[in-house]
């Protein structure tokens, strides 16, 4: 394996991993605060891609249409997430919540199929990011680098939101003692809806951000499902940093696995999962 392929592979692995990370981020947030495992999160990612495409399509021509549609898609998906949370609210038991979101995998998948499923959609990389940069003879697609940057930025923003703002303090308080927060006169339902919305927003935005590197079609959710939850689990449920580390591990294992034995790249990933969970059942940074 030459140095060039190594670098290329590393970058593409990081890109793939960090797209997973963006989706896992929302999951981690939701789980951390509400201890709800939202199996339908990859479906929200798919929704983001489709919403985003059609928004982008309708604003065709504007220079910033892509960026605008990323934001709008995120917001649209955030609304979808809040609706999901509303349905989810009356459920107390964890298994129930998991399976309820599981039902929404079916529902969202078929609704997408019903309305837009008929074909593959593609949208070009936004102007300025469609080329590539050459560093020491190595060609690096600009957009991949951008994805790496933007996902880390998102993580940073979420972290700032949680650690530096009043809202963040409240949210973190809610993690430990809901009654206490309720005592302070904060409406927990609103707080939870907001948290779920933020989580969904990230997933939705990720959906459109990842779209220019491939196609938008039914089945996006299914192929996302396993890797994303693998990331969450081995990162340690609810841990941002853990999710980041895990997503990079998975991304790179997959990318280099392809070099070694393409058809078994997925298998490698599962081996890693098994190993990590045997050593640390609660995940890399999970609290046992």
């Amino acid at each position, binding site marked *: 394996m030459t140095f060039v*392929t190594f670098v290329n592979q590393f*970058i*593409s692995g990081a890109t*793939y991993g960090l797209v997973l990370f963006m989706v896992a981020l929302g999951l981690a947030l939701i789980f951390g605060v509400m201890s709800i495992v939202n199996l339908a999160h990859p479906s929200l990612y798919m929704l983001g891609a489709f919403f985003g495409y059609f928004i982008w399509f309708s604003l065709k021509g504007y220079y910033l249409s892509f960026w605008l549609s990323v934001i709008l898609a995120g917001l649209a998906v955030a609304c979808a997430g809040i609706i999901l949370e509303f349905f989810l609210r009356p459920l107390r038991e964890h298994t129930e919540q998991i399976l309820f979101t599981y039902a929404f995998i079916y529902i969202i998948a078929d609704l997408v199929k019903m309305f837009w499923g008929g*074909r593959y959609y593609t949208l070009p990389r936004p102007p300025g990011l469609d*080329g590539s940069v050459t560093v020491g003879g190595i060609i690096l697609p600009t957009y991949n680098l951008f994805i790496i940057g933007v996902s880390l930025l998102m993580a940073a923003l979420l972290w700032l939101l949680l650690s530096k703002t009043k809202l963040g303090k409240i949210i973190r308080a809610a993690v430990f003692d809901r009654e206490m927060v309720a005592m302070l006169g904060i409406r927990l339902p609103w707080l939870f809806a907001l948290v779920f919305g933020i989580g969904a927003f990230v997933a939705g935005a990720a959906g459109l951000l990842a779209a220019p*590197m*491939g196609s938008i079609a039914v089945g996006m959710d299914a192929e996302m499902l396993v890797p994303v939850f693998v990331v969450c689990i081995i990162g340690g449920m609810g841990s941002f940093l853990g999710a980041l580390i895990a997503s990079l591990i998975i991304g790179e294992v997959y990318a280099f696995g392809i*070099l070694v034995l393409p058809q078994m790249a997925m298998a490698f990933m599962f081996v890693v999962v098994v190993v990590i969970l045997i050593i640390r059942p609660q995940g890399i940074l999970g609290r046992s």
Partner: protein
Amino acid sequence: MERYSKGKVLACVVGILALCFITLPFASAAYAGTVKLGLITDLTGAAFVTARDSADGATVAVDRINAEGGILGNKVELLVRDSALKTDMGVSHARELIFDKKVKLIVGPISSGVRLAISDVCRVFKVVLIDGIGGSVSLHRERGHDYFWQLSVPTSGESYGAAVGCSIFKDVKTMVSIAPDYVWGRQEIEGFMAPFKEMRPDVKILENFWPKLGEKDYTPYITAILAKKPDLMYSVLYGGDWINFVKQAKPYGLFEKMQVFCFAEASSQIGLGKEAPEGTWGFGRAPAPSIRTPQMKSFIKAYKEKMGRWPSDASVTTYDAFMVFKYGAEMAKSIDGPAWVKAMKGATVETLRGTLTFRECDNLSNSPEYIGPLVYDEKHGFAIFKPALAIDTGPIALSCEEIMQLRKKAKK
């Protein structure tokens, strides 16, 4: 656990059986005056896009048949079923259509695995099965039988066509291939190599790449291909896979650095739209916009009126399948499997892709494979063949003896 008392268990059992009785009224016996034809296709899962084109093609075909007075004077009813890429659903729906709806024809699903499973059912219960879209060669070879009819171009023929296409580029000295790593993809490359080596012994095949079906990340392949510096890349990636490859290869300028010859089925071309790389050549099974027959023109017109979009290869071949059945029924003066098969053995039929002949021994049609340069077309909004040359795939087919030997081997 008091709740696990035998009485309650039995109560449940009886309840279930009762439920099964309640379902009885749903059994709609086939009533006279209409011929029921079935389409089983993978309308749930990754193949949905192709499956829907196929289903729409069937709808247009049945409308046309009814407009022309049905089959042997009987109105035709189309029953569409979803096999969801799962053999159990495919087989169960096949049995439903055969036993319950008394269909006379089943047009097969996208997935070769499901189609093979259904093929067994059709053989045993003597119902005609025509493929809606090409698939694994084992379908008409070792697992073939009188009731399976290979209408669209089989993998062997398709790869032969591709080989002819690749041999056109005179100044090419080295090439690589890339194909999805599953039965069909493997067969495409196998079928390609033998004839191509014959036509162009001078071309050195540097490597074959095998990404998995539905791969998201093609960067390793792209960089590896660039590292090999071939003059030609032969790709059988399709659907979302080809779109992903193109999108990821563009920044690396892959399409400027080598001649590309790709599997240009409509769904990925439509998906790519303007994004389609320039200067590539492709091969296809039934590129509707580029086949200039009057029948095709009227089909496209009808299809666009009904569906509001362009037909894809699957739409065309599925349409053909139903038309072939009508033709056969009229020849046999009957819609029953055995009679139909007897009449159609070795028959020559008119299709959207011109006249085709089914071979006596294995019901294999000599469908052409289309090749040509891909050019973006404003009117269509995606790249089409300009022009499309039809390659006769008859010569490449295995001889009847070979086929029979294969089938014998499979029996053992």
